[in-house]
């Protein structure tokens, strides 16, 4: 459904909603995976991101997102210098991720104190984004809602337990997707929530001994 405020908006740093605002949101989402500004980041640009990214400030927007700047933050313009000051060691590479990949795609590999994450995402236009892969797992995250990603042992009753914890924290689930690489292998869950999951809910999920890894992803777009 088209909203008036999608048409009259977003408020953003120029010049391109896809190459600048969308790129910034991808950086912001990646940052959320490790819960802070990374110490190092490899940004592999594909397609139009690689060809026209520099002229559109895609590099500044991606790094700005990793620093926690939102699409309307004027510091995006100086993000590369700010990254140096804040000890974020970034590197860009041009690559071909797949012939069929969306033209505005980036793979972001980041690390903070040994905590690593890899994310593959695209900017779809008008500032909208789609994350397709986290740590090699196929996902679909838009950043329009607060999202929890979680890797758990493939066992019975795990969904009931997890949704129970969220319900106890008064968090309503908007969508839930479950995938696994093989039977008995790791299960990968993407849970979109209407409310922002508090830290305590995250800790309870992490405390489950069959949950290998979990991260909260911030809501980075939408009203």
């Amino acid at each position, binding site marked *: *459904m*088209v*909203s*008036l*405020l*999608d*048409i*009259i*908006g*977003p*408020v*953003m*740093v*120029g*010049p*391109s*909603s*896809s*190459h*600048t*605002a969308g790129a910034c949101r991808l950086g912001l989402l990646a940052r959320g995976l490790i819960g802070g500004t990374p110490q190092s980041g490899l940004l592999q640009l594909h397609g*139009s991101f690689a*060809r*026209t990214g*520099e*002229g*559109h*400030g895609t*590099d*500044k927007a991606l790094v700005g997102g990793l620093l926690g700047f939102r699409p*309307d933050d*004027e510091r*995006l*313009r100086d993000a*590369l210098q700010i990254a140096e000051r804040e000890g974020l060691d970034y590197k860009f590479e041009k690559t071909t991720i797949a012939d069929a990949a969306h033209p505005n795609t980036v793979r972001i590999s980041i690390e903070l104190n040994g905590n690593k994450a890899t994310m593959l995402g695209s900017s779809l*236009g*008008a*500032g909208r984004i789609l994350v397709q892969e986290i740590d090699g797992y196929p996902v679909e995250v838009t950043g329009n809602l607060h999202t929890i990603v979680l890797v758990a042992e493939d066992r019975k009753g795990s969904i009931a337990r997890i949704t129970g914890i969220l319900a106890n924290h008064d968090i309503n689930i908007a969508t839930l997707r479950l995938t696994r690489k093989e039977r008995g292998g790791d299960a990968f869950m993407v849970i979109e929530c209407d409310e922002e999951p508090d830290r305590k809910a995250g800790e309870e999920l992490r405390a489950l001994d069959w949950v290998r890894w979990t991260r909260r992803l911030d809501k980075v777009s939408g*009203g």
Partner: protein
Amino acid sequence: MYKALADAIRDAERDEKSLAQVALEAEARDQGRPIQDIRAALKRALDVMRGAIEKGLTGDLYSASGLVGGDAAKLRQNPNGPLAQTAFRDILTRALAVQEVNAAMGVIVAAPTAGGAGVLPAILTGLAKAKSVDDERVVDGLATAGLIGAVVAERASLSGAEGGCQAETGAAAGMAAGAATEMLGGTPSQVGHAVALTMQGTLGLVCDPLGGLVELPCVFRNATGSAIALAGIEMALSGITFAIPVDEVIDVMGEIGREMDVRYRETAGGGLAATPTGRRLAKERLYQIKRADG
């Protein structure tokens, strides 16, 4: 939100409301938000638009490539132009100002996109100033513009990559013309004619930016798009009607966009981008950006 402007116009005329009011009510229903909240968000957008105009008029702004910049100031300062002291020239100046801010990585409102972000603020704030229109009615104008843009998004496209420049500055001009027509006292049906009269003038416009950058000709297309919108407003407010209904004009814009060769849809493979000079400038300037970022 409405999927046809004809439906919104019918509801507005039946209930004796403005299109802005009808649009705000539909948005409140769709999003479950009070109208007051939506108006507040639109007012914030208006403030950002004004900020961008101000910055573009006073600042000495250049894009990373250096391909565009400094032209809003030229237009503003030239004392001898045939349109000196007119709202028309003030509006062209405002459109360039916003786009120069955009190209220089300043803050703008994508309305409907960043590439077409100059037209709506230029027309609404320029005419509001010339005709002493208060902010409440300018905010109404943004709501009407949002309604028109939503219908274009639904029936055609708002993306240069999908529909060429007719879908970006063309749509922006249609939105601005309809919004301003209502802001200046036009009826809902005159708003429809203003959009049709404006968008018929941008049909077929290709998206051909040098090097794929939102700079050249994008900055100037916002000025010329504003000029076409002003023609649409003037004609509609004079009672001129356009025989093809506005929703059909929007549909045909979508159809032309789908038929348009990919070279003319933001890929820099055709149009001005592919001229000998366009190719040479893009190559030189992209190299320059790379060196500057070092």
